[in-house]
């Protein structure tokens, strides 16, 4: 009994706030019909699920490493564009794999170079000079040779070859595999060799410029094994390029969509790991620099996406599994929906979109449960939870916390990239999509208590619900006391309302809904 009483007194304000939110939520049923209300709630949950995918990584990274990753929104955006490419232009995706794997093969030799530098040349100005020379030569070589690799024709400026056109073709079901690209002037052997040499030099240069080496760790053999495996994979994919591309085009859009989700997540994980190791890790002693470098990465991300995919916003057609409109659609029940692969289903008098209001929420829930299990049931999760509180003590126990940092950063970026691809079919793609979702995620984080994982989830759901209800009320109006006319929130009030919610919650609970006192 006394336990319950202490819990109640300790969490009095929190419980009152939660009760008020619940009350407001329930009162919203007064103004609209059941079906409309259900749709609004589901839309809110859908926005919440996408926001959560971004907020989850953001909060784990902030909690564990004290890094506010301002580039997290751009990771979401890049995820969307990568997913779009796999989905709409698998030929480009397959073409990209070979050079990427070759460059990766060169870069994994990094530990070998560190050991070599340590043995041959101690840190000195001469070593720096040599390292810079290797770095520049490697970059130049990569620049020259990567252009020779055949890449399916892309030209955002030319209508017939722009992403918009291919999106349209796919949604009309008339997408044909474009003509395969030819190898450039260099020829395959020279291009392969040049790219490999370039990336090896790049790794050598970076290793020479990085800090001290750990001779015992760097003498291991795995980098060579990994490099050879990557090279073999690169060559194998090069050999089967055409059949692989044709096979991918022959897949149903549903399968290709799930492949796109997986590839985007994987690309996010790799990108996150690279960013953490090369940019965040050297700067743990200088948190402000970390903040600035993530801001820089976000700008670079936007410009890279603009350069590759072009400026215009475009759409990602929904996969067939969620886009049917044939017999029996809109479906009357969930089973009928699955059978007819209907794009909409009628439930409780509301017309619910399968992809937006069911699939996205399901993916969000799955990720929520998966990350929760990872945190609560695995040793890595235990280390993450401990590290959020006191990473120095975790290190003092003999645990290499830096490795866990990299893992969490990679995982967080992977989730954001997954969110990007997931959101693309319903919200479309644009270079600004990252900034807006980052803002929502930051508000969700502040509401939930910054470093609390359940807080991030709750905050994301609250923000999503509030946003969608405000949009809905903008259409139907809300009956307020003392007002003759129903009040209709204008569109600018929609983003403002989430900020307002954050302000109110932080005034009452300065540490957010689930925040911990330090």
């Amino acid at each position: 009994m006394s336990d319950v009483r202490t819990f109640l007194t300790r969490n009095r304000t929190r419980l009152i706030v939660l009760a008020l939110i619940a009350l407001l939520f329930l009162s919203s049923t007064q103004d609209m019909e059941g079906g409309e209300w259900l749709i609004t709630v589901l839309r809110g949950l859908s926005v919440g699920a996408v926001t959560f995918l971004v907020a989850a990584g953001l909060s784990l990274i902030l909690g564990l490493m004290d890094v506010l990753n301002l580039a997290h929104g751009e990771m979401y955006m890049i995820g969307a564009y990568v997913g779009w490419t796999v989905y709409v232009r698998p030929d480009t995706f397959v073409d990209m794999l070979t050079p990427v794997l070759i460059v990766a093969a060169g870069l994994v030799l990094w530990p070998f170079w560190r050991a070599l530098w340590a043995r041959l040349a101690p840190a000195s100005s001469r070593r720096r000079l040599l390292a810079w020379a290797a770095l520049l030569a490697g970059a130049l070589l990569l620049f020259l040779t990567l252009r020779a690799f055949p890449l399916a024709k892309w030209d955002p400026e030319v209508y017939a070859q722009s992403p918009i056109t291919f999106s349209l073709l796919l949604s009309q079901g008339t997408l044909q595999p474009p003509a395969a690209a030819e190898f450039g002037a260099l020829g395959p052997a020279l291009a392969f060799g040049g790219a490999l040499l370039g990336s090896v030099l790049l790794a050598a240069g970076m290793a020479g410029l990085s800090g001290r080496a750990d001779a015992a760790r760097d003498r291991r053999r795995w980098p060579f094994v990994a490099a050879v495996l990557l090279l073999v994979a690169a060559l194998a994919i090069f050999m089967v390029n055409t059949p692989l591309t044709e096979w991918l085009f022959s897949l149903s859009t549903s399968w290709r969509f799930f492949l796109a989700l997986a590839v985007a997540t994987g690309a996010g994980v790799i990108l996150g790991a690279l960013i953490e190791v090369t940019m965040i890790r050297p700067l743990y002693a200088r948190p402000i620099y970390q903040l600035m470098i993530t801001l820089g990465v976000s700008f670079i991300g936007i410009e890279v996406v603009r350069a590759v995919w072009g400026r215009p916003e475009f759409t990602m057609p929904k996969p067939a599994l969620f886009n049917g409109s044939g017999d029996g659609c809109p479906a009357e029940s969930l089973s009928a929906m699955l059978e007819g692969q209907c794009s909409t289903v009628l439930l409780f008098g509301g017309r619910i979109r399968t992809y937006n209001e069911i699939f996205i929420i399901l993916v969000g829930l799955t990720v929520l449960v998966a990350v929760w299990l990872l945190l609560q049931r695995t040793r890595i999760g235990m280390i993450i939870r401990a590290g959020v509180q006191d990473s120095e003590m975790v290190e003092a126990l003999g645990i290499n916390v830096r490795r866990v940092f990299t893992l969490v950063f990679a995982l967080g970026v992977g989730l954001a990239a997954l969110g990007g691809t997931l959101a693309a079919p319903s919200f479309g793609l644009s270079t600004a999509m990252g900034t807006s979702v980052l803002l929502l995620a930051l508000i969700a984080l502040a509401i939930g208590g910054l470093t609390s994982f359940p807080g991030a989830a709750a905050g994301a759901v609250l923000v999503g619900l509030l946003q969608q209800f405000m949009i809905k009320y903008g259409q139907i109006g809300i009956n307020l006391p003392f007002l003759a006319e129903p009040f209709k929130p204008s569109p600018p009030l929609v983003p403002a309302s989430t900020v307002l919610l954050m302000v109110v919650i932080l005034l009452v609970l300065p540490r957010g809904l689930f925040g911990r006192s330090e």
Partner: protein
Amino acid sequence: MSPLLEVRDIHTFIGQFHILEGVSVAVPPGTITVLLGRNGAGKTTTLKSILGLTPPRSGQICFAGQEIHGLRPYDIAALGIGFVPEHRAIFRDLSVGENLRIAERRRGDFARREELIFSLFPDLKRLIHLPGTHLSGGQQQMLAVARALVPENRLLLIDEPSEGLAPVIIEQMIAAIRELSAETTVLLVEQNFLVASQLAERYVIVEEGRSVQSGLMADLVQDKATIQRYLGAA
């Protein structure tokens, strides 16, 4: 016998502050050595410097014949050094059992040492599923020591084990540390001279970032003048 841990003339900076200006400590195997000194003398920083948490700028630290100065903290700890920090640093979000299991260096460490740990601190067995937040100060201190016992450490660095504890609990702590010193070497920081004199065989006095005197505890207890000079009250 050559010492298990030998710290020679380390200098440590925190930011621009020169905290340790030449500390030397030798810890013979199988003994309890205590670092004595006033508040802010540099005792805690000495422990953290040994573990590499505040890496010294110069000097040598030898553990079991190996130079460990310059290694990362996790590599130093993995050589067999356990750390019980000031204010215990219990992980609040982890249960008591998780707080113990996180310290495993090899799978099954905790299972191997469970019996020893629960014989030293029987209370912990009862609390095993409770989150770290719910522990009292004394229980937290027991958990912090127990955590350092999970892997087979050869050296324990224990910072202020009696700080803020009730006298009964201090008695229990003293008994536990004495018992575990049968199999591990201990380097202790202790403000409470009474506790230090009951536990330690050897002492090192740290004054303004320098180690100024060391020897056998039995001799120091007799030496009222030194105690008065470096430690204030006797």
